[in-house]
């Protein structure tokens, strides 16, 4: 069975003077056509690095040190920069957190959209402009003809993010990687942008990898979810199942720590301590010093990533019982 995107045992390291630092430590997941997946975790868990690794855009001193990113049968991690440029921004687009940093402040948004198209298609400028106009309409920008000639500073934050989405869509990509697309926005604007993104992905059958720290946003938009902790995926599966019945103690802690799940005024369930920095990840399971279920084995052995819950999800925890037919691995 082949998927649109298959990430296999991906490993990303950063070469530092003191030695290599492992930011992503062997993660695997896949995405089918039109599927929406959430990648959640706290700061420093490696979510953004994963996003960049997919489009092979890890900047020095970082590098992909192992594993494969197979997209339509081709391993992106092994592609030349030239071949990668054909795919990046064309078949796989990326949306970043801060639209003001993403857009070029000295070019009109029309220029920026047309530029993207001309870089990837052999079409005329007039054709490119027509496509840009169509995409601006798609993201519900009022009076798009006029807006094409305007500069980013003439738009509000929410409108800018719509334009970034329009630019990401302009080449009809198969996958959009959205890294915290609404974190910089207000909650009413966030709701609108997430609605828009979901609706566009559905109508164009575009795959979405939504990278965010906000479990609530992920639970509303995605079908699948992967929870990251200290450079690894600790739990993945169908969003509904993971959110309503988390198996990994970290996922459980994260969901219980949300204020919305309790009686107002009650003490929140906190996870003690904090995520280890990449330089001193504890031996065994990286979560063991904060884990309420920790036993001796957790401090010695790294837990395998195994299917549980009748194969509907994968969990990396010694304390979670594997499916009986799996035996011991």
């Amino acid at each position: 069975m082949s998927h649109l995107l298959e990430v296999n045992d991906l490993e990303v390291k950063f070469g530092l003077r003191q030695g290599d630092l492992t930011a992503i430590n062997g993660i695997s997941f896949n995405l089918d056509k039109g599927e929406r997946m959430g990648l959640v975790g706290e700061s420093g868990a490696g979510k953004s690095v994963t996003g960049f690794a997919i489009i092979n855009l890890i900047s020095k001193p970082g590098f992909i040190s192992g594993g494969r990113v197979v997209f339509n049968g081709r391993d992106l991690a092994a592609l030349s920069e030239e071949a990668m440029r054909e795919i990046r921004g064309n078949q796989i687009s990326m949306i970043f957190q801060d639209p003001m940093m993403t857009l070029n402040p000295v070019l009109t948004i029309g220029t920026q959209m047309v530029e993207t198209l001309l870089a990837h298609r052999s079409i005329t400028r007039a054709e490119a402009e027509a496509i840009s106009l169509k995409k601006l309409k798609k993201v519900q920008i009022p009076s798009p003809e006029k807006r094409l000639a305007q500069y980013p500073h003439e738009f509000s934050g929410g409108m800018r993010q719509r334009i970034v989405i329009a630019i990401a869509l302009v080449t009809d990509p198969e996958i959009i990687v959205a890294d915290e697309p609404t974190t910089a926005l207000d909650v009413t604007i966030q709701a609108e942008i997430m609605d828009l993104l979901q609706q566009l992905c559905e109508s164009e059958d575009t795959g979405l990898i939504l990278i965010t720290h906000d479990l609530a946003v992920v639970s509303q938009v995605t079908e699948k979810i992967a929870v990251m902790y200290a450079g690894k995926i600790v739990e993945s599966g169908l969003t509904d199942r993971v959110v309503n019945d988390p198996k990994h103690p970290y996922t459980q802690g994260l969901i219980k720590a949300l204020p919305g799940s309790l009686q107002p005024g009650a003490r929140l369930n906190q996870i003690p301590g904090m995520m280890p920095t990449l330089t001193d990840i504890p031996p065994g399971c990286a979560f063991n010093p904060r884990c309420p279920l920790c036993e001796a084995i957790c401090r010695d052995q790294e837990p395998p990533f195994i299917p549980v819950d009748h194969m509907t999800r994968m969990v990396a925890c010694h304390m979670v019982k594997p499916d009986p037919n799996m035996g011991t691995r």
Partner: protein
Amino acid sequence: MTTEQPKPMKSDENGLLALKQVVKHFDISGGLLDRLRFEKGKIINQRTTVKAVNNVSFTIAPGETFSVVGESGCGKSTLARTTLGIYPPNSGEILYRGTRIDNKNAQQMLPFRRKMQMIFQDPYASLNPRKTVMQTLEEPVVFHNPSISAVQVKDRVAEVMSQVGVDPKWASRYPHEFSGGQRQRISIARALMVDPEFIVADEPVSALDVSIQAQILNLLMDAQAQRGLTYMFITHDLSVVEHISSRVAVMYLGTLCELSPAKTLFDSPRHPYTQALLSAIPKLGRKKSGHVKLKGEVPTPINLPSGCVFHGRCIYANPRCIEEIPEARSVENKVIVACHAVEEGRL
């Protein structure tokens, strides 16, 4: 306790803290040359002001957690700073236990400063990187009690540090040696050092991860239970607000739209803006249930809309809303709403 206990002051119907018709505008017109404009054959000198807070009134009762919510640019942080006298209001009154504090000079403010402290959003920016934790924490105590002995200060620092969950052994370290959550604990310790009664917390958990956010919120709730603190909590995170607040004020474009007990507000929001705001909160595991979409965008606080500031985006707006500014009125059990539609019974 090594610091002096605050003298009991009279508390009246004004509660602990009361704001009356507070207005704060900022003049952003710049120098003379920036202000001059040529219009209809005349040179005119035009000032530009940002109307950040307009006619806001409310009372905070002792021991409660009063939250102010709203989107970026609605004036909630300005309101927090004006309340503490960091910005002088343009007009209106601020009363602390019935005493006006908005017209006091720095010297006269000193006794009030000890009772009113602030916690800021970004613990990376609010702690002086060149001071050790000890120096940061002892400064307010020594400033307000010049006669206090060095030993007493040390004890006090150690006591408060352990209360906020930072090992007192780390007092000689610098802020960069701590994580974001630890730093926020230190900022909370700094506010607690002088035994305040009232703390204004401006987005205290917004910069923190979920698991750390829960730790800090628990700490704030514990401190409140132990010390009988009163909080004014400024935030845009509505699920945090629902969890910790006793009453909530909703602001839009510098104006108070609605003020209700937290439970009432989240169960049955009255103001159309509050309804839109609450419907936009993403809820865990609940699929989208159609949020109220607002038309248009937030206008600029430089040119406020006439009448109700929300009328341009409100689906219930009628001609009266465009002309007349709605007054904040109590509608029923402690709910205050500034909306013509609610007043007229249309909503």
